[in-house]
């Protein structure tokens, strides 16, 4: 499987889209530093961008690479290697390439600004960790959607729908729900619902670490109040990891049963 990861990775790191992605983060983070010299403000601004962009790009990359390598996958399937190595290897190659691209793009301006000498290093690390985890979660979801749907337009459409639901519509629906049921105690429900949205989990994880209560929103405040900072962060992190593992086990399950 390591060989597949290596070659899938080698193929992707030469893709101009990935350079564009890294360049985008470099420019964005650089621009944020240009506007404000305050590290924690830059981290919060960057977080808002990451929570939108990382899931979208990872989903689209996951779908795109799966579709683009279909015929090549046939060649791999004819080799004496087990199926699970091929598909998990390809997925890990994509996710790792995306994660490294993000780390370089968002990380280099921080390193240049002297993050290692400041007290913000742990806040920054959590931001990077969240971005990396979201890259793994959403590229797995994208890869899985493409594996299930042979129709490419449907695969891309579903990926964008998943992104819209989790990154955009979810917040609106959540607020509507809170307004409608404001007479009831909703704290447990809020925690329960958050579990279903990895983007919200990543946001909570970063904000709990930053301890910016004004930006936490309802779910973040509930996490903070009922679970405390460390337990809240621990729980958010564990569920995010589960979010990364579940689609991968689905990829494995489907790839063992699919015809090519």
């Amino acid at each position, binding site marked *: 499987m390591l*060989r597949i990861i290596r*070659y*899938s990775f*080698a*193929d*992707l790191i*030469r*893709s101009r889209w990935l350079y564009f992605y890294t360049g985008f983060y470099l420019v964005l983070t650089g621009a944020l530093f240009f506007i404000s010299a305050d590290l924690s403000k830059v981290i919060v601004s960057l977080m808002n961008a990451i929570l939108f962009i990382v899931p979208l790009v990872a989903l689209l990359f996951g779908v795109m690479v799966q579709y*683009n*390598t*279909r*015929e*090549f996958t*046939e*060649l*791999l*399937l*004819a*080799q*004496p*290697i*087990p*199926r699970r190595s091929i598909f998990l290897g390809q997925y890990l190659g994509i996710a790792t390439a995306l994660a490294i691209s993000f780390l370089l793009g968002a990380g280099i301006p921080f390193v240049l600004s002297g993050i290692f000498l400041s007290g913000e290093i742990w806040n920054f690390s959590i931001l990077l960790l969240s971005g990396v985890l979201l890259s793994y979660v959403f590229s797995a979801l994208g890869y899985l959607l493409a594996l299930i749907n042979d129709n490419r337009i449907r695969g891309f459409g579903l990926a964008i729908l998943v992104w819209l639901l989790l990154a955009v519509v979810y917040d609106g629906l959540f607020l509507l729900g809170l307004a409608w049921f404001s007479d009831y105690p909703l704290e447990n429900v809020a925690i329960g619902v958050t579990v279903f949205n990895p983007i919200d989990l990543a946001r909570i994880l970063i904000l709990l670490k930053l301890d910016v209560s004004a930006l936490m929103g309802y779910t973040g405040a509930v996490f903070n109040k009922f679970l405390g900072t460390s337990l809240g962060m621990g729980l958010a992190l564990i569920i995010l990891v589960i979010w990364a593992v579940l689609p991968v086990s689905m990829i494995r399950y489907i790839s*063992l*049963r699919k*015809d*090519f």
Partner: protein
Amino acid sequence: MIHLHHIHKSFGRLQVLRGVDLAFDQPGITAVLGPNGSGKSTLLKSILGMVLPNEGEIHFDGKPIDKLGQYRKDISYLPQIARFPENLRVHELIRMIESFRSQPSRSAELIHHFGLESVLDSQLGHLSGGTRQKVNLVLTLMYDTPVIILDEPTAGLDPVALVKLKELIIQAKDEGKILLITTHIMSLVEELADRVVFLLEGRIYFDGKPEELKQRVEEPNLEKAIASLLSGGHLTPIQPAQKDSKPIRKMNGKVVQPQVKF
């Protein structure tokens, strides 16, 4: 070597293979023929474990094929469509496939044979269709395996490359290998094949020597023999499927006779 026992395969409601029994034991070239959609590729892919039959068993070298796929080290397979990761270079791809098998490879000899030296450093996305097919052939034929499966090997090849491919196929046959080839080019079949398996709508309608086929339909050449086979008269499956007696294909409730296009 390869034994298929009563293989059934459907994709959704479309039945692609309907009870195929075949054995490939003797060295030589078998041409698997049939119109588009007759189940040729599905048949070959099920031998490789890429398509999983709904029913039936496939044995390779006396053992049922397994999901780990170690038996595939004895098979070389040329897929029908040659598309590779666009950003990898030709030599990287060859090295990658070589790294999957700890078997000696004769890639250098084949690269020279097909004149690919000048494109070794090119990215695969920049190659023409014919050159990609040559790379595909190098990847397939670089191992010394007892079984070689070629799905439309002539697609996109220029006449010079086609002659070189034929040389390699004949060389493999002379070495006592089992070759399974699908193609729509009847002259190639006539020139090379020792055995013809004719598939239509997922059933085998003929399995024997090309001469026998010509005699059976009383046609002097294979192209005409196949056309005659398809035009009616001689269309009787040699292995009628026992489990289903449904019409061959239904479209909007009407029974439609097999449409044959080459």
